[in-house]
């Protein structure tokens, strides 16, 4: 007797986490639109995404990593390494196009490096990626030392800074494509299903014939690759690189993913949730920035929002108890 029919499904959706997030998004957009005339302009809407594009792209793949029951703290360092490696290769005289390909390869290597220690050696990913967070950043420093490297070819900078199709820059299109791919793979394919099962219980998955190591390795490699891509997009967007590119982005990325309803213990969450969470964070930040609220207050407000968001089930529980319902099913 599963809930069938459009009305039932709709009701279930709205009662779900995603439904709640959607509500928040709508409220935020409405609030922003009323509060400031600058909000609902095409340029501002594009800026909104463009300014955090690297973080939200990596948030998509981080959704996989965390649902898989792992964590990748090294993503921001991979972004930094990718950007710096690109700058360095370019400075050494490598054609930018080739450098892009090499850098994506470096991203894959970084992911594989993490995967090796997590899968083959069996260390907790938190430890491994904490160490590579330091190590990959260090490698970026080795490449650029205290220099800033810029002067990339025009086509490269244009891709990062000018609209590509209509008013949309390439990064936004990349994000859209990646989001669609992420949604399809995680929510609709056998691979995605395995990611969930491993996150819930890797023993059960292994006893069901799932090649746990391979799936985990694939997810880490994807994480490295996407982080490297994000690093390149960053280099194109800002037109130059330095050793501190993307420093500290990992916490923002993880915040987005967790706010989207992905459980830090693995096995729970959706790409839709992450996408909605992205909209919330971006709109909130943008709205506050347009209202001239400074950086630390913005992060503080985001912190409060984060706590409130995980309290929603509790609040709903109170309401349910008040109206005589049963305990929430865990």
């Amino acid at each position, binding site marked *: *007797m*599963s*809930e069938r029919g459009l009305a039932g499904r709709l009701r279930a959706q709205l009662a779900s986490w995603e439904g709640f997030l959607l509500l928040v998004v709508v409220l935020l957009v409405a609030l922003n639109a009323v509060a400031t005339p600058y909000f609902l302009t095409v340029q501002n809407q594009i800026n909104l995404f463009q300014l955090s594009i690297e973080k939200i792209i990596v948030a998509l793949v981080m959704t996989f990593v965390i649902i898989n029951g792992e964590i990748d703290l090294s993503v921001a360092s991979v972004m930094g390494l990718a950007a710096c490696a690109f700058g360095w290769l370019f400075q050494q005289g490598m054609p930018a196009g080739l450098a892009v390909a090499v850098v994506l390869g470096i991203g894959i290597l970084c992911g594989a490096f993490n995967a090796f220690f997590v899968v083959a050696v069996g260390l907790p990913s938190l430890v491994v990626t904490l160490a590579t967070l330091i190590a990959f950043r260090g490698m970026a420093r080795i490449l650029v030392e205290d220099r800033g490297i810029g002067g990339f070819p025009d086509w490269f900078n244009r891709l990062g800074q000018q609209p590509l199709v209509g008013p949309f820059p390439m990064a936004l299109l990349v994000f859209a494509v990646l989001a669609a791919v992420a949604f*399809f*793979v995680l929510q*609709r*394919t*056998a*691979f995605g*299903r*395995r990611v*969930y*099962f491993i996150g*819930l*219980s890797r*023993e*059960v*998955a*292994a*006893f*069901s*014939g*799932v*090649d746990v190591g391979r799936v985990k390795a694939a997810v880490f490699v994807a994480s490295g690759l996407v982080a490297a891509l994000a690093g390149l997009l960053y280099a194109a967007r800002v037109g130059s690189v330095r050793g501190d590119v993307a420093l500290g982005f990992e916490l923002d990325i993880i915040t987005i993913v967790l706010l989207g309803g992905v459980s830090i213990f693995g*096995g*729970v969450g959706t790409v839709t949730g992450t996408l909605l969470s992205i909209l919330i964070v971006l709109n909130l930040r943008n709205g506050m920035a347009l209202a001239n609220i400074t950086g630390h207050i913005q992060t503080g407000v985001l912190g409060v929002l984060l706590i409130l968001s995980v309290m929603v089930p509790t609040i709903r529980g109170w309401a349910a108890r008040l109206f005589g319902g*049963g*305990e929430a*099913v865990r």
Partner: protein
Amino acid sequence: MAEPVLEMRGVSKSFGATDALKDVSLSLMAGEIHALVGENGAGKSTLIKAMTGIHRPSAGTILMDGREVAFRDSGAAQQAGVAAIYQEPMVFPDLSVAENIFISHRDRPQLIDWGRMNEEAAEIIARLGVRLDPRRAASELTLAEQQTVEIARAISLKVRVLIMDEPSASLSDHEVRRLFGIARALRDAGVAVLYISHRLEEIFALSDRVTVMRDGRHISTRPTAETTQAGLIAEMVGRDMAGRFARMPGQAREEVMLRVAGLGRAGAFADISFEVRAGEIVCLSGLVGARRTDVALALFGIAPADAGRIELAGQAVRIASPKDAMRLGIAYVSEDRRRLGLALGESIAANITLPALPRYTGALGRIDRLRELADAEGFARRLNIRAPGVTVPAGTLSGGNQQKVMLAKWLNMAPKVLIVDEPTRGIDIGAKAEVHALMRALAGQGVAILVISSDLPEVLSLADRVLVMREGRLAGEFPGETATDEAVMRLAVGAV
């Protein structure tokens, strides 16, 4: 008779749309062993969780010594003298056996005297007739040993009411007898014992009164002496089960499906040779800890053997991972449902289709969800799985229904060789009959079936051939028709 120690009046409990308990009343007297029986999902475990403060009843009252009580959590229940062994093993893997036993005691001094604690733990374990080093970490224990630790924890408390939810499910006969001795001793000391089991022999051997539940309702309570097995079963299932466990003629075919020769793994088992024909049901019997599971794990590629050979349909094969095994058509239904069998947070349907996912995937690895749901619903019907739907998380089902989901998961793979480890542990008698019938039907289709079971009556009614293992080696073999409990037991314990 005396006042009831603990009494439940009109207790109801619902989980979302499921009404697990409906207006249940039950009283436990000091100095009685009270049995509680009922089909899977009848609400037995929920009832005891309501007693110990783990669930808050939606309606009704609980009284102790005639006074109304509301336990905030199971700690409060323990302080009032109500302790329970739950159906699911609940040990602390990182703590030692002794600590596991004493961790929740509130009457011990703050400062831990490790030496004394280990001694006391050893004493309690000895009362259970088990040898277990109290200093070992619980993570190193087998399921059965974990269960023992839990029993030890419960009897170490100063209890007035002791609740045991299927404590015998993973114990050997020998250990069960010791457990009975302890239960009787506690009864004689004035403790009220509530005992849940699906093994009716145990009910009759042990209990003074028996309560039957069905569909969350209280059906009857009467002195055990005034009931019969058939009568209880009829009340439990609401229908007649006579003749369900009679032996059936074997359906073994000529073709040898699985042959194992000289199989061994260092530190676990050695020199195991046997064969299973297509359509044959072979039971691997023995005491708990005889290393039967390890043989199965080797055949399934989890812990591959390091000696000997395995042949499948005459072909020598190498099995290094579950994937290899599954490709060869071998399925393994684990004995440890919670840890190894099901992902409790995933839906029933997703659990059922996990091993066979490639069958459901189309272009780009996309899962055909309609077909998946249809198949899952088919299994839910065939195996009579009680659930609000196949999209609910498997963790919301009762233990027995979870067991059926796990079976469905492996049947869905359409295996050639099916290895089932304790297939009916924690399954009610009706479901057990269904599972047996199912296995016979599978055998009829030519599947070779290896059953690992510690339930002797089950072995004797199901097996075409019985293999007995002891301490990692094959101790002997009987044809199914001529095997007797006594003969099997003698081999299992190594008596001559």
